[in-house]
């Protein structure tokens, strides 16, 4: 259909996936960038203090296409006004203020210097937890935690009539009839029949309990509490999404320890002195009463600023060792505030405990929370030798 000077054509472009392919690569890079920023995101206030449902905006600077360009804020722009403007009139405000819409000026949007990815907290959690697990998990004998089920996951030509896969059977009949030149559902012959069959799914779910202990004494300031809360926020989220059977007991302590609800644990005000041993004692008591070690994998975590009564330290060491005897792992996180330059006594005292299942972590700033999570929830082989090897610094989280 040639015409003088032009041709109009419409072709099949369905094999032109280029844009989609590169789009996928871009999104992959976005994810990588987010992963690199995880350390910052984990302690992001808007997430920790949220209801956990919101969508967060994640600034990803690495995906900006950087080049030599003029500073848009220092350029003279030209735009179209309404005719009422006089020199000196303020006509727009920069982004960051409430003003919606674009900045003025010819040219592409100036000043927008990062790309924002939107993520739900769940997606973020998925990335954070990707390769985390409960360390030293062992099968215990509590029966309710061994889950079995039937999974219909295969189709065969023979089986019980009760398991007939009607849809597939009809499709087969239709296909066979169509091949013979008569597209219809009947007749259905025996060879068209398809049956669902199942596998028995046996999932060995080990029972686990986490004893979350937190110092709520007067020396725990806003920052310290915030850090501990960020850690437990993600820990609880992680455990709840990964292990349905995990129980968590919350223990708050100053000089005395109390078991509290999750709600109280995260909102409790601070007061009083510090006696960490009280928390360990309560933990041991709980283990004895409710969580016999032969039935549960027990994980005890304790967060403190390390500002313990010195006379209590020796007792703490002894109790931690007792905990280690019945726990799969014990973690101690110390939030180091720059106000106290010296190494805390508790942290250094615990240095004496030589057990691969005992993990100590010092947290100095928000971005340390993520490495701490990784240090505690490193997925490990069950034998202790492997655990000891994994004691090395956490993986490439930067």
């Amino acid at each position: 259909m040639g015409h003088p000077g032009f041709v109009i054509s419409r072709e099949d472009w369905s094999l032109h996936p280029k844009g989609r392919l590169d789009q996928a690569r871009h999104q992959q890079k976005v994810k990588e960038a987010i992963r690199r920023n995880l350390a910052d995101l984990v302690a992001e206030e808007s997430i920790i203090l949220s209801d956990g449902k919101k969508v967060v905006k994640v600034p990803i600077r690495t995906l900006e296409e950087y080049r030599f360009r003029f500073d848009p804020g220092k350029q003279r722009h030209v735009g179209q006004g309404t005719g009422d403007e006089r020199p000196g009139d303020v006509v727009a405000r920069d982004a960051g203020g409430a003003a919606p819409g674009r900045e003025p000026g010819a040219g592409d949007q100036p000043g927008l210097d990062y790309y924002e990815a939107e993520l739900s907290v769940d997606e973020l959690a998925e990335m954070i937890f990707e390769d985390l697990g409960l360390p030293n998990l062992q099968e215990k004998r509590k029966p309710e935690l061994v889950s079995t089920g039937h999974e219909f996951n295969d189709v065969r030509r023979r089986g019980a009539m009760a398991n007939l896969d009607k849809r597939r059977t009809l499709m087969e009949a239709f296909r066979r009839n169509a091949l013979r030149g008569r597209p219809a559902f009947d007749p259905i012959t025996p060879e068209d029949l398809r049956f669902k069959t199942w596998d028995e799914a046996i999932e060995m779910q080990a029972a686990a309990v986490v004893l979350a202990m937190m110092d709520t004494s007067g020396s725990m300031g806003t920052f310290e509490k915030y850090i501990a809360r960020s850690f437990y926020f993600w820990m609880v989220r992680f455990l709840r999404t990964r292990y349905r059977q995990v129980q968590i007991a919350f223990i708050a302590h100053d000089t005395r320890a109390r078991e509290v609800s999750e709600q109280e644990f995260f909102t409790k005000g601070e007061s009083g002195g510090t006696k960490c041993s009280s928390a360990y004692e309560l933990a041991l008591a709980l283990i004895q009463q409710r969580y016999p070690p032969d039935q549960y994998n027990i994980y005890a975590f304790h967060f403190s600023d390390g500002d313990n009564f010195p006379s209590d330290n020796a007792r703490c060491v002894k109790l931690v060792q007792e905990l280690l005897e019945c726990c799969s792992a014990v973690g101690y996180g110390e939030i180091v505030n720059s106000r106290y330059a010296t190494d805390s006594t508790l942290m250094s005292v615990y240095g004496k405990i030589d057990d691969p299942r005992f993990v100590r972590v010092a947290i100095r700033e928000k971005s340390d929370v993520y490495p701490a999570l990784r240090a505690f929830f490193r997925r490990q082989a069950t034998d202790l030798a492997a655990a000891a090897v994994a004691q090395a610094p956490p993986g490439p989280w930067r």
Partner: protein
Amino acid sequence: MTDRELLELERWTERLVRRARAEGLDFYEMRFEVVPADVLYSVGAYGMPTRFSHWSFGKAFHRMKTEYDYNLSRIYELVVNSDPCYAFLLDGNTLAQNKLVVAHVLAHSDFFKNNWRFAGTSHFVMDNMAAHAERIARYEFRYGKEAVERLLDAALALAEQVDPHPVGPPSEPDDEDEEPGALEPARPSTPYDDLWELDRRLGPSQAAEGRDLAATPTPRPGQRPVQGRSAGVTLQSSEPRRRSEGHRETVRRPPGARRHPIRPERDLLRFIMQHSEYLEAWQRDVLAMVREEALYFWPQIETKIMNEGWATYWHAILMRDEELGEAEALEFARMHASVVQPYRLQLNPYLLGWKLFQSIEARWECPSEEDRTRLGLPGGQGREKIFEVRQLETDVGFIRNYLTRSLVEELHLVSLVRRGDEWQVESTGWQEVRDALAARLANGGIPVIVVEDGDYGGKGELLLRHQYEGQELDLHHLERTLPYVFDLWGRPVHLMTTVEGKQALFSYDGESHHRTVV
């Protein structure tokens, strides 16, 4: 569009082509491709139906497609400057919309064929870019996707740093054996040689003021956001002038010995491609391809306002003279209005360019008393004049020579500056506004950066200089672009620019950044 509508469009186009020719438009053979949105937007993101893969294109594609899906903006067509000229029309357009688009596109094709700035463009650009894509894909296979991506990241970051002008003094003698102090090789002399002298005598800052430059791409809701990336004329010299591998001045330069390059080199990408000792042959090849493509897109950046104005002018004229049904006439009017709607505090290139061409035509057709006496216009030359303008100008000249006081006032153009986080009207005076706009369009709105010394400090480091003309660089971007230069150069890189009135040297040595105020 249904098949019946396609036939109708064909009949329409046949008539339109005849009429456009009769009006004096001179366009390439046209190839109209009716494509689905996916394809149109990928052509928009890549700038070409087939181009090499890079995530930045995917990012652009995603953004444009999302805006389309959410009905935020719509591209009606895309034109590729090639011979024959390919125009992509959206299958989802109504027949009436595609009719207007055809009229619009014919004028784009005429512009590509006749504007001087496009004279150097290869007619086989589509084939060339497809070949590039294939070659880069082969490099990916051989050297790994990651290695190619890293290289492209760096190359694309510098793709705007090319010398887009098809004429100019040779940047550096090819003859590498030239002794220091030797005479420059004789060139045929022309009556304009003193202009080059001007550049040298005045130094960068003053000479640059008179330099012509061009428009920023403004992808906007509307018709035809030209490809977002850099653009350029394809020079015949797209072949890299290869030097022998590993070339370097034979001995370390003693203090006071000749510089390298002898004169500041405007084409950063070419300089790196030729002189980096760090790059392997395939990497040089990739740089050469990226550079060639950048040069192809460049004239489109420099003529955005003119090109869109010209196409808008002509679709308006051609549609006006068609006999249309009531419904169709209304649809055209609505579409035209949305194309030329003003953007608050921004510029709509379609509107500005269209108004400028109309104003030029009116002035040369029926000159005012002032134009008659000052410019000696006899009148009756309206059409002739706009054809001349579309041939001889780029956006900077278009604005500088033809933006009149009455037009600035009619369009309520203002210049704006930022104070703190507020944007203030700086001026409503027509000359200030005109000059501010011309300055913004200069060099496509891209800073001019030259290679000052390819052996800085005698250590093979690279010293760049920003030709400061009153607009400061974005330091945030600057410090993130230098590592790309380093990736290509393989040794520490430095850039000299002016920050708040002071000379500052930005350095990157592969690990950390340094700023020194000179």
